[in-house]
């Protein structure tokens, strides 16, 4: 793996906010191309911050962030970002939201229509082209956001707890759909969650972060066979084993973060 150029490399990355709060401290993470890597950690530890540094939406106060061996300097092309909060444009309907990145790239109208219709079909939203986001359910909005990101074929996709606001059934469904879309696409995915089951079920590798300031506490390779089906993979004995080991690591951090939150002045 060391001979392959990494898709993402964080070296000694720290981030201190102007208020003085340190969100990340000396973080080293390397993501090989085509891998599905999850970041887990207690709430508020700095996971979203790490993603915005990779996306070029913010800059580290120390260390370097490289994407495809190039130093991140502003928003890079070829990186997609699914935000934790809803980020569809409320004044554009489903079609126009999915078309938005292609319109920005000034693609010809015919190509836009073809690719948008293809992606709307692939995320099962046919018939909803003219609906505005306010008329869709949470799960459907996530699908639109997914199509909007995949339509311009970024090689790297950053996902910030994309499914955390969904009910359990919709979530399982979306996880399966995500795996199907990713399988064989060659895309690199960095997936932030605080749900260990979700992290293990989806990933090749899980990185456990400490309570803020976030450092890398441990990393685990998930060697469960692919293609995976979410409901079945949970029954695999290796799944339970990994879950137990990771939960051991995470528990201390969650307790620490909880103690801090409740004793805060």
């Amino acid at each position, binding site marked *: 793996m060391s001979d392959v150029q990494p898709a993402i490399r964080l070296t000694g990355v720290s981030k201190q906010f102007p208020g003085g709060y340190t969100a990340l401290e000396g973080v080293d993470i390397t993501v090989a191309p085509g891998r599905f890597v999850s970041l887990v950690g207690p709430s508020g530890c700095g996971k979203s911050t790490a993603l*915005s540094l990779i*996306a070029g*939406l913010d800059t580290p106060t120390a260390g370097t962030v490289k994407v495809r061996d190039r130093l991140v300097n502003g*928003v890079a*092309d070829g*990186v*997609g*970002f699914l*935000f934790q*909060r*809803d*980020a569809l*444009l*409320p*004044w*554009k*309907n489903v079609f126009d939201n999915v078309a*938005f*990145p292609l319109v*920005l*790239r000034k693609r010809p109208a015919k190509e836009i229509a073809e690719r948008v219709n293809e992606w709307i079909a692939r995320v099962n939203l046919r018939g909803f082209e003219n609906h*505005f*986001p*306010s008329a869709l359910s949470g799960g459907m909005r996530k699908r639109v956001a997914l199509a*909007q*990101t995949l339509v*311009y074929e970024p090689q790297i996709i950053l996902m910030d707890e994309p499914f955390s606001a969904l009910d359990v059934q919709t979530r399982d469904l979306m996880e399966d759909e995500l795996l199907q879309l990713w399988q064989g696409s060659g895309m690199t995915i960095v997936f932030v969650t605080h749900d260990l089951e979700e992290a293990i079920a989806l990933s090749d590798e899980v990185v456990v972060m400490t309570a803020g300031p976030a450092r890398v506490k441990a990393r685990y390779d998930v060697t469960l066979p692919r293609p995976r089906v979410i409901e079945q993979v949970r029954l695999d004995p290796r799944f339970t084993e990994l879950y137990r080991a990771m939960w051991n690591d995470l528990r201390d951090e969650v307790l620490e973060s909880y103690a801090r939150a409740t004793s805060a002045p």
Partner: protein
Amino acid sequence: MREQLRPLNRWTILSTQVVLTILVLGLWELGGRAGWIDKLYFSRPSDIGMQVAEWVRLGYVVKDVVTTMSETLAGLAVGALVGIVLGIVLASNRFLGAVFEPLLVLLNSIPRITLVPLFILWFGFRFESKVASAIALVLFVVFFATYAGIKDVDPTLVASARVLGATRADVVRHVLVPSALTWIFSSLRSAVGFALIGAVVAEYFGANAGVGYRIQYSEANFNTAGVFAGLAVLMVLVTLVDAFIVRVQRHLIRWK
């Protein structure tokens, strides 16, 4: 919560409104005829109606409405356009915003009506002084609404657009302006009223046509019915323009 309430009947509301209006106008008319209300100062609905009819017959209404509306609309168009552009530029450029926003707050503290004599000094009793008064009243309302609307935009939407490939200009066009549109339209509705005030007040100071001129002329001749008739014409005008703006707004902000 709201769904649980029994829906109100539109016709009951409308008929109550009609009855109330008739009641007030009827009492006014009766009071005038019985001598409880001084006709010299308060006139009577029938006299006011006759005055409007007289003006219609003489062709004054059309002439006055056309004059006042062209001043109002010119002032509204220029004032709103400048206000929107200024709002977009100052809200999306941090340096310019920091420099000019306090200055505009300062200018806004001047009671705009007091500028009307100044405009008359500069432009005379012509069309331009009326338009300038309307602009002065409209500009700030629209500017502050646009500015606030853009500052209010969800930062996640801006970040998302940037990741999707938007340049600064793309962000303004696809995110900031549509997001501010709700605010801009609600300000435009009050701006119509302000533009009309500007035009009419400037007409009071000196003109030879226009609803404001007609009111001022009636007043100078102790024609109270004429003053009320002018107000009635203004009322109808504002209602019509407001209804038009609401329709445009519904069309442009149909995503809500």
